[in-house]
Structures are given as C-alpha cells and as structure tokens.
C-alpha cells in the first residue's frame, strides 16, 4: 500500500511537471498562480494524450512512458528557464489588495478538498457511473493497447459502459494504475485532486487579475464549495475533468479577448480538444468555444482573426479525428444522440422543450446541488444589467445559452431512454458542466465596492 501511495504521488508530480513545462511554452503567463492552475488542468490531458498515442501504436501505459514524458518536461523547463521565463507577477492590478480576503477561498477550498481527497484516495470506487463506465475503461486500457482493438469495444454485453465514449479520463486513470502496477487500487481516481485544485487556482488568479482579490475570493469560494462539484469531483467519473477543462478554456478565451495573443487561443484549443476526448458533452462545448472566437473578437472578419479561428478548428479536428475514426465501426447499442439529430426529430419533439428547460431551471435552484449559486448570478445580472454591453459578459452568456440549447436538443431526440428518466439522472451533471461559465459571469459582473465618503 505504501508503494502504491508513493507511486501515486510521483504520478501526480509527473502530471504537474508536464503541465508546467507546456504552459511555459504555450503562452505568456501574467501570474504564477494562474499559470500553476492552468498547468494543473493541462498536465493530466497531455499525459493522457501521450499515453493514448502510444496505445494507438500498440503499447499499454507503463512507468517508462510516463517517466519519459516527465523527463522531457524537465529538460524543456530547464531550457525555457535558460532562455528566460515568461512567468511574471509584474502585471499589477489596480484593485484593492487586502490579502485577508484570500482566507475565504482558502477555507472553502480546504473544505471541499477534504471530501475530494477522501473520495479520490481513501475509498474504493463506489460511484455507479465511475465503476460501470470510466474506471472499467481504465482497466481495459491498462491491459490492452488500442491497436489491435480490444474485444471490449465490440462486446455488446457491455453496452451499458458506453463503448464509444471518449477515453481521456480513463487513460489518465490508467496512467495511475501503470505507475502502481495494479488495477486493484482506488487510487486511480487521484488525478481528480489536482484538477480540482487547478481550476480553483486558475479561477482565483484570473479573477484577481481582472477584478481584484475581493471579488476573486468571493467567486472562488462560491464555486469550489458547490455541493454538486464537491460530491462528484473525486468519485472517479469524468465530471471534474470536464468542468476543469471547460473552466480553463473559458479563462483562455477571455484572455484572448483581452490581449489577442495567439498562445491563449492555442491553449483554449487544447483544452477544447481535451473536452471532446473527455465526454460527448464536451463536443458541443468545444464547438461553441470556436463559434465564440468568430463572433466575439473585436474584428471578427479580419483575415488575422479568421485564420486564427481556422487554426482553432484545425487543432480540434486534428486532435479529435483519430477517435472519431477509431469509433466509427463500433456497435451503436447505447444512446447515440448525434445520429438521431435531424430537423424532423427536433420538430416532432419540440413540445417537450419547455418541460426540459423547466427541469434545467429547477436543477439550478436545487439547494442540495447548487445552493443559491445560480440565484446569485440572476440577482447580479438584474442589478448590473448594463454589463451586458461588455463583450466578455455577452460571450459567456452566449456559451451558456448555446450549451443549454445543445443539451436540450439531445434530450429532445433521446430514443433509448425514457426522456424524464434520462433527465432525472443527468440534469444535475449538465448544470454542473455550466457552472464555470456562471462563476465567470458572477466575477465579471460583481459590483465594485465603492467606499462611502
């Protein structure tokens, strides 16, 4: 057991190293904490991608593969450091800097982290989705490379595990199994801990930079203590990963809007592609992110912007096509929304739309999952309606509404499930996926404190 814990710690350190090395190369980082947070979210994706690449080449994940990428990361960091790091804390904010505010998100984060660590490290995988789908796939990838194709992917008796679901989250867990040399440990869920920490750090640092420490503290504390997030982060499913990647991609898009640095766009594209490899719900999220680049940059039809948007789309396509190609012949015995999505099916099921949207609304005000997080967003929007003129606020609202529309469409064309049953078991997660966007909206619109004179 001690060696398993030690190998898990080494694996988490490898994920961090890979993330830090990559983030240094990709774009200018205005704050160390923001870079650290984004690195924590990016590291697991890159490690998962590296292991998937080797799995396509016929090799199962191993310590050698993991440590070799980590060694490359170390070399890259040394080289980058020698050239002069772009990490900087010099971009000072003009906002109030009462550091005591930081105690609030730290306390909320510590509270949430206790439960995430408990679920991820101390108990077996007991979440239904986690062991029936994600951690089962992790075991498949631990024993068999993707080429030649394992029998699992054609075994219709295992259709309940969603044979064609993307494999980034399982592969990140498989990396942990490979380091421990066993598939029998609940520690394979451990990467969730750094994703939770990464998103918290990135959100706090980003909002602190644009709105000051007071608003950053409030928003981060609200977000990291969300019951649904704390409940689902460490259980071994894909929710934490998708939420962390989506939050990171939105932060990168907002940075792009602010500074127009191509590096931010590359980072947003990487996070978006990773979302597509995480869950099917990540596909519309990634496409919506691409749309936002076209619609909300200052000069949308300039040749520079169009070429950057095309570059974003190309990164998504290049990174996702291998999985689309790999799964094209797999049995479609589970719910397959995309193939049912037609104008006729949508028109037929249009009367169900109000009911679906109502279920979304009631989930957003469900105290046991979301507390009054969404109510606060509505209140802030009501108080500060003039902020809708802000391009950044409009962009996040657009992503939020488009994503709700995309999920509603999927619910409308459902065939295998009874619609109400499916909504009942999944709408809480759909709302959770949207929560980083809501957190950023609250951050962008929170009223500035005006001192009373």
């Amino acid at each position, binding site marked *: 057991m001690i060696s398993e814990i030690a190998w898990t710690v080494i694996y988490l350190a490898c994920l961090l190293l890979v993330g830090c090395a990559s983030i240094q190369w990709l774009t200018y980082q205005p704050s160390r904490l923001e870079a650290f947070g984004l690195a924590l979210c990016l590291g697991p994706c890159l490690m998962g991608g590296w292991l998937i690449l080797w799995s396509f080449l016929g090799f199962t994940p191993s310590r050698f593969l993991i440590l070799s990428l980590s060694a490359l990361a170390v070399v890259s960091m040394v080289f980058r450091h020698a050239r002069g790091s772009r990490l900087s804390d010099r971009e000072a904010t003009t906002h109030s800097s009462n550091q005591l505010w930081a105690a609030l998100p730290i306390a*909320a984060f510590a*509270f*949430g982290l206790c*439960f995430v660590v408990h679920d991820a490290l101390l*108990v*077996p*995988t*007991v979440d*239904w989705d986690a*062991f*029936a789908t994600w*951690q*089962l796939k992790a*075991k*498949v990838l631990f*024993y*068999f490379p993707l080429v030649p194709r394992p029998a699992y992917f054609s*075994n*219709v*008796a*295992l*259709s*309940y*595990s969603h044979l064609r679901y993307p494999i980034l989250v399982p592969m990140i867990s498989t990396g942990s199994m490979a380091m421990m040399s066993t*598939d*029998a440990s609940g520690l394979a869920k451990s990467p969730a801990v750094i994703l939770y920490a990464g998103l918290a750090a990135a959100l706090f640092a980003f909002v602190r930079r644009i709105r000051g420490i007071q608003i950053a503290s*409030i928003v981060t*504390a*609200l977000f990291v*203590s*969300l*019951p649904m997030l*704390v*409940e689902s982060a460490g259980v071994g499913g894909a929710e934490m990963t998708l939420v962390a990647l989506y939050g990171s991609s939105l932060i990168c898009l907002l940075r792009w809007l602010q500074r127009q640095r191509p590096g931010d766009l590359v980072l947003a594209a990487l996070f978006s592609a990773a979302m597509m490899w995480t869950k099917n719900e990540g596909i519309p999220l990634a496409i919506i992110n691409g749309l936002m680049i076209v619609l909300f940059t200052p000069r949308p039809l300039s040749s520079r912007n169009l070429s950057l948007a095309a570059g974003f789309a190309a990164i998504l396509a290049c990174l996702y096509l291998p999985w689309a190609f790999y799964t094209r012949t797999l*049995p479609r*015995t*589970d719910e397959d929304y995309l193939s049912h999505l037609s104008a006729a099916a949508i028109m037929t099921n249009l009367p169900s739309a109000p009911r679906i949207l109502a279920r979304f609304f009631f989930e957003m005000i469900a*105290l*046991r*999952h979301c*507390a*009054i*997080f969404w*109510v*606060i967003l509505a*209140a*802030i929007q009501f*108080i500060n309606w003039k902020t809708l003129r802000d391009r950044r606020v409009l962009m996040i609202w657009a992503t939020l509404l488009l994503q709700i529309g995309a999920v509603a469409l999927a619910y409308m064309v459902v065939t*295998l499930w009874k619609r109400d049953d499916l909504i009942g078991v999944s709408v809480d997660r759909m709302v959770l996926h949207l929560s980083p966007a809501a957190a950023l909206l609250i951050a962008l619109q*929170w*009223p500035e*404190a*005006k001192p*009373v*004179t």
Partner: protein
Amino acid sequence: MTTSEALNSAKGIALGFAVALCIGISVYATLNDRFGNDRRPRELKLYGGLDTLFSQIRQEQTPIFLKFGKLSGKDIGFASTVYFRSVFDMFPVPVLVGDPSDPIFFVEDILRINLDHGDDWLAGRHVGIALSVRLSNGKLLMTPRRVPAPVLETPQGPGLSGHTNSP
C-alpha cells in the same frame, strides 16, 4: 449619506448576505449528504462485500455466469448492481448473464436474457463457475457452483478425456 450611497450600502449588505447564505447552504448540503443518511456506509459495505467475493473468484481466472433469482419491483436494481460490479472487479475475466451477443444497457436487458442454462451451454462458453444470486429478507445471497468440465469426444470414443477451464 446620499440616497445613492445608502442604496449601494444596502446592495453590498444584501450581496454579502447572499454569499454567506450560499456558502452556508453548500457546507450544510455537503455535510448532510455525507453524514445525514446511511446511504454511503451501505454502499461501501455492499461494494466491499462484492469486491472481496469477486476478487477471490478472479484468482481462478475462469469466466463466471451470474444467475439471478426472482427479482421484482425496486429489487431488480440489484441485478445491474451485481453485474456491473462483477464486470469491473473481474476484468479482464469475462462475466456472463446471458448470451454474450445480446446487448445490455438497462437492468431489464439483464433480466430478459438471464435464463437457466445447462452445464453444456455454460461449458461451451468456457464458464467455470456459475453464481446464483438472490435476495432473501433484503440480504444478497450468492451461491457459487463449479461447472463440470465438458466431455470431449475423441476418435476412440466419447468421455475418455476432458479439460477444465480453471488454470
């Protein structure tokens, strides 16, 4: 203090109260979910028991067949719980509940194909252990049975030799 300043102060107090309320509800909801009911201890106990059993069976490296007793009402959920958990625990050793070519997505799919099969059918699919699973007074009872090795027919005559699925 002007009206506008008073309004700003009121807004600040209301927002501060909303933040405190939101974090308070979040903390309460999380603690209540963890400690306010016995769902988690029950889950841990159930899955712990299943994990122990299936990890022992896994050492035999032989495919197993699960046969569920009569389940009805809310109890049918046990079939998917036991099947999904056994597949997770036993992987890569196969677990069967019916013909492997039948798709399983919902618990009803399991119960529809989960028929009584003779030893020849089981042995033909290399099943070494058949596990009878039933509920009795809310308790999950599982009875394993070894499937006899199939009788091989040789040119000299039937029944002279056979093979076992166990390693």
